[in-house]
């Protein structure tokens, strides 16, 4: 009886590990395959059958991405918008959270509700569009930064953190005659660095991944981002077929170093993914706390 159960348990464990392995493969394969295609000669890729390893190694897809002026500009815009958004969001979330953490503040209740309501009430796309236009932000770089300057959810997370700090810190500083801004900058801000690092990563990933704001508010080529360029390529390939290369790129003709939309897209996908993978270990360190905090509210 006892023996039998252990055998069953072993079978269960083996099947479970096998199932988990299958999930890992399903999660990784699409990205791995894209990586392989990005390093494979574009003309060879059209012949099909590229799965786990490049058949004809080539760096040309990446060379074309980094030689293309538009894509390079888009990459630059993506980086700049991400950095600025992160800096502004971290400062604003920290400061507002500090203000709202002060129990005696007369506007605390009002401001909290004023902020939280914005998470649920939205005017919708079209009124927002006219607001952006009226503010002169249409086709303006700052449309990437200003509308998302303060994240209510981030503020709640930071406020919860500040409330867990000893309140006597603020009292002591006040007795020493420090002003509010001074207390925030030299006491609260440094103490909040762990939670603010989390916020920075969240905002950074969000800004890096967003494309809809370019699509609606800043479609001009000079403000295009990496994700928006990817979106345009994806749209084209969805409409005309993934490997539908223009005539002059078709195999059989004697041409060296050609690129196809599909291979360029693979290289760009990797370029857009690498920064995420780079910060991923740091993200993972913190996200469990934030994820759980979101349910507690």
């Amino acid at each position, binding site marked *: 009886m006892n023996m039998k159960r252990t055998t069953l348990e072993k079978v269960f464990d083996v099947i479970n590990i096998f199932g988990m392995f299958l*999930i890992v493969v399903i999660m990784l394969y699409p990205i791995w395959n894209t990586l392989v295609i990005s390093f494979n000669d574009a003309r060879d890729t059209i012949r099909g059958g590229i799965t786990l390893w490049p058949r004809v190694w080539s760096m040309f897809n990446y060379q074309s991405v980094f030689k293309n002026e538009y894509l390079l500009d888009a990459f630059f815009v993506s980086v700049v918008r991400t950095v600025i958004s992160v800096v502004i969001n971290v400062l604003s979330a920290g400061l507002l959270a500090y203000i709202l953490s002060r129990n005696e503040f*007369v506007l605390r209740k009002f401001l909290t509700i004023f902020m939280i309501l914005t998470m649920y009430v939205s005017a919708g796309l*079209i009124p927002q569009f006219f607001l952006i236009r009226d*503010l002169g932000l249409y086709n303006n770089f700052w449309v990437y930064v200003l509308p998302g300057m303060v994240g209510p959810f981030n503020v709640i997370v930071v406020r919860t953190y500040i409330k867990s700090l000893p309140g006597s810190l603020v009292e002591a500083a006040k007795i020493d005659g420090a002003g*509010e801004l001074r207390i925030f900058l030299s006491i609260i801000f440094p103490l909040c660095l762990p939670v603010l690092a989390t916020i920075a990563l969240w905002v950074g990933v969000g800004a890096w*991944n967003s494309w809809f704001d370019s699509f609606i508010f800043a479609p001009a080529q000079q403000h295009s981002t990496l994700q928006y360029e990817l979106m345009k390529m*994806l749209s084209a*390939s969805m409409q005309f077929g993934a490997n539908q290369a223009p005539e002059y790129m078709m195999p059989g003709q004697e041409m060296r170093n050609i690129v196809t939309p599909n291979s360029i897209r693979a290289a760009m996908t990797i370029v857009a993914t690498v920064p995420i993978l780079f910060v991923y270990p740091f993200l*993972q360190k913190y*996200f469990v706390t934030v994820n759980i905090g979101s349910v507690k509210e």
Partner: protein
Amino acid sequence: MSDRNIPIIAPQKRGFFTMARSQKELLLLSIPFIVYFFIFSYYPLWGLTMAFQTFRPHLSFWEQEWVGLTHFKNLFSDKYFTQALYNTIMMSLINLVLHFVTAITFALFLNELRLRFFKRFVQTISYMPHFLSWIIVCGLMANMLSMDDGIINNLLMWFGIIDKPIHWLGTPGYFWGIVGVSNVWKSMGWNSIIYLAAMTAIDPALYEAAAIDGCGRFGRMWNITLPSIKPTIVILLILNAGWILNAGFEVQYLLGNSGLVMDVSETLDIFVLRRGFGSRSVIGYSYGTAAGMFKTVVSLVVITICNFAAKWVGEERLV
């Protein structure tokens, strides 16, 4: 524990203005935030008046033509709108069911993994797609489902299940399923975090007792783990049900781009976008705004009800 958590006996009430005068600095610091929220979140609400007008962007507010509820009446006789509403609700329901079934099952089996290292490894890999943008995820999906050399078609043909490639993204019948699978691929691991966290709170003594009573692995999962996380499941289910009109926008827009599956891919958000900006008609802006307003108002009601329900259930549990 901070001394802030100790209930303080209410200080002698001072007048609002006396208090405010001593908090000048805090007030000053909060002004930019009030202005920010007002401009970007409250002021645009005024734009909802567009839904009751035939809005022409070049005219001032006083010169607009008011049409009352005409746009709302037209919405409900517009078969594209009712179709979009239906699509949105159906895709939300499919996503909701898949979300819960996959995340909970995944968490249950992950919890049974004995090898610490392997468990961490699986978690790390499965959370990752959550951080990729929808553009990238949709691009990957399009590659996998491709007619030319997609792995899905290749595998199915290799196993002899089909004899010629299926045009997955061009067939309306598959679209909702593909949206569901994309969501699962992107978020299953991420969604499982909360259940895994709930499972760590289960008393190990319960498992020992069950083992002594002759309960197998499946028995323990079914009779101990699952009932223990039931409160978490119920509350999350109620909270998520509130977002029924938010089936998402990006997946449907990006994967439905071929135009072949428009009938089933168009959600309310896409309807607003296409009517608002895509049509040459003079009522476009107003009509789109009306559709968006309908969505916002209904969503708000449903979300509020669900939040209250979740709170009520949560309190019931405590009693």
